């Protein structure tokens, strides 16, 4: 069992989800409520990681974040290190490829709030922030929870993008999924099987827990 890789994957998943929470709520809410020119393009860009092969996405991220890119150079100027093949670079990539998993459930759950309920919040004197906290999030939280769980599970399992952007540097970018691949390559079937089983269990438990909670909420708000 590669505990370092498991710890790294867990850290990556938790940080990804924490970063995605405000992005998902902010962008999901805007996409749910506003109509603006180019909205379809934004929605398509957000959904793109769903259909793009991970290696293609990884390639473009590698190019976009590499030391020759503006982002890479900016990062280097600020922190004196490069972004690709580091944990930070992996985190940025992870946030990007998880965007659809975070934004779409949140967007749908904001869309499900009746306009009259939102209007009523404003007529009750709630500022937009207050309405978000007291009315919208309490109603949309099953979608937010789904987003978090999907983002978490998906980060644990992502392989192609991680390998392209991060490589397989132990303790820095070698996630559990990459580690499983390494073990299989090394004919260490026992370790691969253990880690796979663990990943399977974690994914199953988180997804089942989400279903359970969202159903309970569905009944409560029915």
């Amino acid at each position, binding site marked *: 069992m590669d505990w370092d890789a498991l710890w790294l994957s867990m850290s990556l998943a938790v940080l990804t989800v924490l970063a995605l929470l405000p992005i998902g709520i902010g962008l999901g809410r805007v996409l749910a409520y506003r109509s603006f020119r180019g909205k379809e393009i934004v929605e398509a860009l957000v959904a793109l990681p769903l259909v793009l092969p991970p290696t293609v996405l990884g390639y473009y991220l590698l190019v976009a974040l590499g030391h020759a890119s503006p982002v890479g150079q900016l990062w280097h100027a600020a922190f004196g290190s490069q972004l690709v093949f580091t944990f930070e670079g992996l985190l940025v990539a992870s946030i990007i490829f998880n965007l659809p998993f975070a934004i779409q459930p949140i967007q749908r759950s904001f869309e499900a709030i009746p306009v*009259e309920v939102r209007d009523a919040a404003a007529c009750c004197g709630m*500022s937009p922030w207050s309405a978000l906290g007291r009315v919208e999030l309490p109603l949309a939280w099953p979608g937010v929870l789904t987003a978090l769980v999907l983002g978490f599970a998906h980060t644990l399992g992502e392989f192609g993008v991680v390998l392209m952007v991060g490589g397989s540097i132990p303790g820095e970018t070698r996630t559990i999924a990459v580690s499983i691949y390494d073990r299989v390559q090394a004919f260490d079937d026992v370790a691969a099987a253990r880690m796979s089983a663990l990943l399977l269990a974690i994914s199953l438990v988180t997804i089942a827990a989400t279903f359970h909670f969202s159903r309970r909420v569905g009944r409560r708000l029915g």
Partner: protein
Amino acid sequence: MRGLSLELRQEAPIPLDIALTCAPGELLALVGPSGCGKSTILRSIAGLYRPRVAKVAVDDEIWTDTSAGIRVATWMRHVGMVFQSYGLFPHMSAIGNVEAALATPDPAERRRRAAALLDQVNLGGLEQRRPDQLSGGQQQRVAVARALAREPKVLLLDEPFSAVDKLTRGRLYEELAGMRRSLAMPILLVTHDLDEALMLADRLCLVQRGRILQQGRPLDVVNRPTTPEAARVVGHRNIFPARVAGHRLDPPATLLDWRGRRIEAALQPAWSVGAEVSWLIPPSKVVLHRRDRPSRGEAENPVAGTISSFVALGDTTISAIVLDGGEPRRLTLHVARHAAERNGLAAGVRISVSLLAEAIHVMPAQRPRYRRDEVPR
């Protein structure tokens, strides 16, 4: 100025050309067919809709003035709004919904006031129920209590009675009428139900295609519409063209020439002789002559024709009559069912009726249905 004053103008997407005022304590009903823009008027007052040109002022506060670039956010306007499907917060109890609109910082005081408001709308004892555990009428009462909790400077009611059954509606009318005495702010009620407006409103404003057709005391608007268009919106069917033939002072009457037939109307001397006009008569003021005792000409405004359609609706019957003398529009007549049966009314039967002169109301001639620049929808 005290009360609400409002001006809204835009061409598209929803045409609006509205100017109205509502005094403190006054209940103004906005009545019109679905999609005529009446809900948009309320939403503009609340700041939930932004027309191209708008001016909304309540008491001394300007809430919207597009020409001065002023637009106070909805949540900063003291507006109480009851939505058509109430818009209650589904995750909060009844009292939680009311508390959500109270600005009182002290939680104990807030709870006390919310409970008092729920008592006022007869919901004492149901404070802890969530909206899905309340009936439609109870939900409406929570919505009213919540709107009042905001201490509104204007109260907006958007079809608040349309989602409840008839029995509950009657009780809610009574409750609103009772509560009104203690409400000192302008109240705007949007409804498509004319009877509802007649029961509750101090003033009625007919809206069609974003324009005000007529406003005034409810019974005046219904009985004396100023245009054929307004007459049609309030449900009049017997609208006919005529020319003013003269006025008579004793006994007082305005004489109309209706396709060569002379009829007498209530004296309306403002109309000049020779003017082309429209006139209307409510179906209940068309009186059936007994068929076993034909009129010998002494009856008031006698006309004859053949019943083209006959429908019984409960205790009353509605007949459409094709008149003798070439009037292409049919005359509608309401007769109590027993009288209709006694007189053998049915499609194809010839009858004669009197048009009661006192109920004949004269209006300007019918305009062409649509102006050339107006595309019918």
